C-alpha cells in the first residue's frame, strides 16, 4: 500500500480530532460515532493492523474507513510532519480495499453508476443540461470559459438551482462562457477519494482529452470538489487548465463593477466547504461576495475557516450516506451551530453542502428560522431585487 512506511508513525495523541482552540472535536466521523477507531488516529492504527494481518477487512473496518469525509481537518490539526499525507493515507487504504474487491455496497454501486451512466444518479446523459432549459446558456464552442457544472449541479434539484443562479450571474456580467451539456463528463473527484484509482485515471485522461479537443483553456467550476480534482489531480495527467471556483470569478465581477449587488437585508452565516477551504485554501472569496451585498450582516460560526466542521458530505459520503442518519451526524451538528449564531441564512459555496445542510435543517425542524442559500444564489437574488 502507498504510504505503508508512514502508518506506524501515528502516536494517536488525538490532536487531529480537535479545532485549533481545542474547544470542539472537529473530525466529522468521530463526532458521530465517538469510538476512537473512527478518529484519524484510530484509522491509522487500524490500517497498520490490517496490513500486518491482525484484523480483517470486515464490514466494520469498511465503515470506519469509508466514514472519513476526507475533510482535511486532521491534516490541519495533526501535530506531526506527516500530517499532509493523512487523507492520502486513508484514500490509499480505500484503494487497497477496492483492489481486494471488498468494499461497502453503497460504494460499489457508486462506481457502477459512474462506469455505466457517467453519473452517480443512474440518469441518462441527455438530462445533464436540463438545469439550463429556459436559460440563455450556450454550448461550449470556444468561449473564454467552460462552466463545468458537475454531477450534483446537473442532476440534483438543489444543485441545479445553484447552477442556474451562477449562470444567470455570468450572463448578466457578460462573461463569455459555455457548457458541455450532455457531453459533460463526471470530474471523478469522489471516484478518486472512494479509492477507485483506475477509474479516476480513466475519467481524468478522457476529460482532459475532451477539454483539449474542444479548445478549453479556462474553467469555472460550480462544485469545489471538481475544483479540487482539476487543480490538484488533473495536472498529474497533463491537465493544465486555468481553473477557478465560481465564487472567485464572482468576486472579480463585483470588484470590476460588472455585477452590482443591491440591498438584501438578512443576517447570514457562512459554512466553509472543505474542498474550497481546507483543500483549496480559499476562505475569502465567498465572504467577499457576502460583504459586497448591502444589508447582509455576516456572523461567523465559532468553527469557521480551517476549523469549520464538515457537512459530512465529503469523501463520497454525499452519495454513500455512511455518516448520515442521526442527531450526531455532522450536517445536523453544523446547522445547530449555524442556528446558534442567530443567522436566518446559512450560506454555502458547494452544491453538496447545500443539499446536506438543507436536509439537516428539515431533520432538525429548523425550516422556519434557517434557510440554506448558495453565495451565488444570494448574489443573484440581490441583483434580481431591482
Amino acid at each position, binding site marked *: 500500500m502507498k504510504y505503508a512506511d508512514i502508518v506506524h508513525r501515528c502516536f494517536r*495523541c488525538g490532536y487531529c480530532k480537535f479545532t485549533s482552540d*481545542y474547544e470542539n472535536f472537529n473530525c466529522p466521523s468521530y463526532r458521530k460515532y*465517538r469510538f476512537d477507531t473512527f478518529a484519524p488516529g484510530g484509522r491509522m492504527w487500524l490500517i497498520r493492523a490490517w496490513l500486518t494481518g491482525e*484484523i480483517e477487512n470486515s464490514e466494520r473496518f469498511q465503515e470506519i474507513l469509508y466514514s472519513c469525509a476526507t475533510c482535511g481537518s486532521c491534516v490541519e490539526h495533526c*501535530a*506531526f510532519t506527516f500530517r499532509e499525507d493523512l487523507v492520502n493515507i486513508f484514500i490509499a487504504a480505500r484503494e487497497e480495499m477496492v483492489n481486494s474487491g471488498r468494499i461497502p455496497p453503497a460504494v460499489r454501486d457508486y462506481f457502477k453508476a459512474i462506469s455505466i451512466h457517467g453519473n452517480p444518479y443512474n440518469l441518462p446523459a441527455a438530462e445533464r443540461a436540463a438545469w439550463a432549459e429556459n436559460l440563455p446558456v450556450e454550448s461550449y464552442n470556444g468561449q473564454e470559459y467552460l462552466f463545468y457544472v458537475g454531477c450534483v449541479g446537473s442532476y440534483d434539484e438543489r444543485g441545479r438551482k445553484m447552477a442556474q443562479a451562477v449562470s444567470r450571474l455570468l450572463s448578466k456580467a457578460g462573461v463569455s462562457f459555455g457548457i458541455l451539456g450532455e457531453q459533460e463528463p463526471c470530474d471523478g473527484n469522489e471516484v478518486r477519494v472512494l479509492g477507485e484509482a483506475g477509474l479516476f485515471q480513466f475519467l481524468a485522461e478522457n476529460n482532459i482529452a475532451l477539454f483539449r479537443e474542444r479548445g478549453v483553456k479556462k474553467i469555472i467550476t460550480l462544485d469545489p470538489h471538481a475544483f479540487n480534482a482539476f487543480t490538484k489531480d488533473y495536472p498529474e495527467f497533463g491537465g493544465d487548465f486555468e481553473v477557478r471556483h465560481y465564487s472567485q470569478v464572482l468576486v472579480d465581477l463585483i470588484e470590476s463593477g460588472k455585477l452590482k449587488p443591491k440591498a438584501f437585508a438578512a443576517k447570514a452565516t457562512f459554512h466553509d466547504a472543505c474542498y474550497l477551504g481546507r483543500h483549496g485554501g480559499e476562505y475569502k472569496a465567498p465572504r467577499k461576495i457576502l460583504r459586497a451585498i448591502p444589508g447582509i450582516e455576516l456572523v461567523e460560526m465559532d468553527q469557521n475557516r480551517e476549523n469549520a466542521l464538515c457537512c459530512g458530505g465529503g469523501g463520497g459520503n454525499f452519495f454513500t450516506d455512511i455518516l448520515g442518519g442521526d442527531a450526531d451526524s455532522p450536517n445536523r451538528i453544523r446547522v445547530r451551530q449555524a442556528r446558534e449564531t442567530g443567522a436566518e441564512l446559512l450560506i454555502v459555496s458547494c452544491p453538496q453542502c447545500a443539499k446536506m445542510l438543507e436536509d439537516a435543517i428539515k431533520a432538525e425542524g429548523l425550516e422556519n428560522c434557517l434557510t440554506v442559500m448558495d453565495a451565488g444564489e444570494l448574489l443573484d437574488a440581490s441583483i434580481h431585487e431591482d
Partner: protein
Amino acid sequence: MENITQALAEIVGKTYVSGQAEERWFYGRDSGLMPAHQPDYVVLPRTVEEIQAIVRFAGRENIPVVPMGAGMSLSGLVIPQKGGIVVDMKRMDRILKVNETARYAVVEGGTSTGALHAHLNRHYPRLRFSIPDSPATTTIAANVMIHGQGRLTQQYGFNSDMVSGLEVILPSGELCRIGSCALSDDWFSKGPPLPDLSGLFLGWFGATGILTKVGLKLYPRKKMRDVEIFITDSPDFVPGILYEITHTEMAEDINIFAQPLPLIFKDNHHIVVYFTGEDLEELDFKKKKIFHALDGFIRNKDGGFMTIGEGMRKTLLDMPQRSATTFADVTRGGGFEYSGPIIPIDRYPQCSRKLDELAVKYDLKYHATARVIGRGHAMMFAFSFTFNRADADMLERTRKALHEASEYALSVGGLFWKPTLDEQRIALAKMDPQTAKLMKMIKENLDPQGIMNPGNWEVPG
C-alpha cells in the same frame, strides 16, 4: 457474548457499544510499550446512570470494568488485563460549573483538558488550571487519577492536589460524593476539614471506582507570560539552581530538559523558568529576581541564560505543549515512553547520569525532562526514550532500558509515577508490609469481586 452486547446496548444504546474486532483491537493497547490485551466490549456512556447500570451489570455477571479517558498514560493503565468492558468516558464531556469567585470548576468525567482550557479562555480569561503537557484529549479525570502534573505544579503540587471534589461510582454501582460537595452544591474542598476520602480513589487508576465528576481548583491567570532558560553543563549544579529559583517564589513553572540532539542542546541541562505578570512591570520584576538569584552561578561560570529565539519562545509558551508529543517521531517511528519517577530534587544528577548510561547501553535516543513539584519538595524526572514502532529490536531495547531505569529510580528513593503493572509489583514488594496491607484492605472492601481495572494495585497474598 450476544446477550451481554444486547444488555449493554439496552443501557447505552446500540450505536455506543461494540464487541467488534476493530474496537477490541484498538482499545486493547495504548501508545506505549505494554503488552496488548483486548477487552470483550467497549461502551460509550453518556450519563452517570448509564455507568451505574454498567457497573451493576458487570458486578452481577462478574465482568471486569476498565474506565478510560484518552488512554495517554503510555504505561498501559487502561489496557484491560483481564478483558471485560472498557468504559470510554469521553462522551461525558460537559463543563457543568465554573465558580469564578471561589475559583473552581466542575466537569464531567470525560471532559478533556483541551475543552476546559478553551472554555476558560473564552468565558473566564482571568482563570486558569494546571494544564498538563499531555495532549489536549487527555481527560481531567484521568489526569488527576494518575496524579498528573501541569503548568501550576511548581506552585501548587500535583494536579490531584488541586482537586476540589469528586463524584465517584463505587464498584457496587452506588454513587458517592467526596468533599464539600457531599454536603452541599459547593465544590471547594475535596476533604479538609473532613476526613479526606479522595485518597481512596486518586492514584488507584479506577481500581476502586469511576470518577464521573471532578471539581478542580482554578487559579489567577495573569495577562502576560514569559520564559527564560538557564543553562549549565553539569547536572551537579541543577539542584542548587532550582533551590535558588524556587526561593524567589517568582516562577510559575520550572522544567528541566537535557538531550543530545539537536547538537545545540548536547551536554547541557536547560532549566526552563516560566513567569507571569499582570503587566510589564510585574513581569520585569519577577524576571530580575530570577536573574539575580542565579548571579552566583554566572559569576562562577557554572552557567548562564540562553538567548531564546522567537520560534522557540512560542513553542515553549504553547499550552498545551504540542511539541511534547512530537518527540514520538524523532526516529520516524510514532512512539516514546518514559519511566517518570517522582524524586527528591537532589537526585537529579545521578538520574541524569543514569539516563546517559542507559541511552549508550541500549543505543537509544533520549530526552531527559523534569518538572519541579511544589517549590522543590520533589520533581518528576522522566527517563524518556523515543522508539520506532516498526522496529522490533528497538522496541525490545527500549523496554529493557525502561525496566532498568525503573529499578534504578526505586533504588535511589524514587516513587513511580503512573506505574506500569511491573512497576506496581516491584513498588508493592518494597513497600512497608503494613502499608501494602492497608491498600489491600481498601481494595477488597471497596471491590470485593475484584472487577474494577483488575491487575492494578493488586497486593499479593
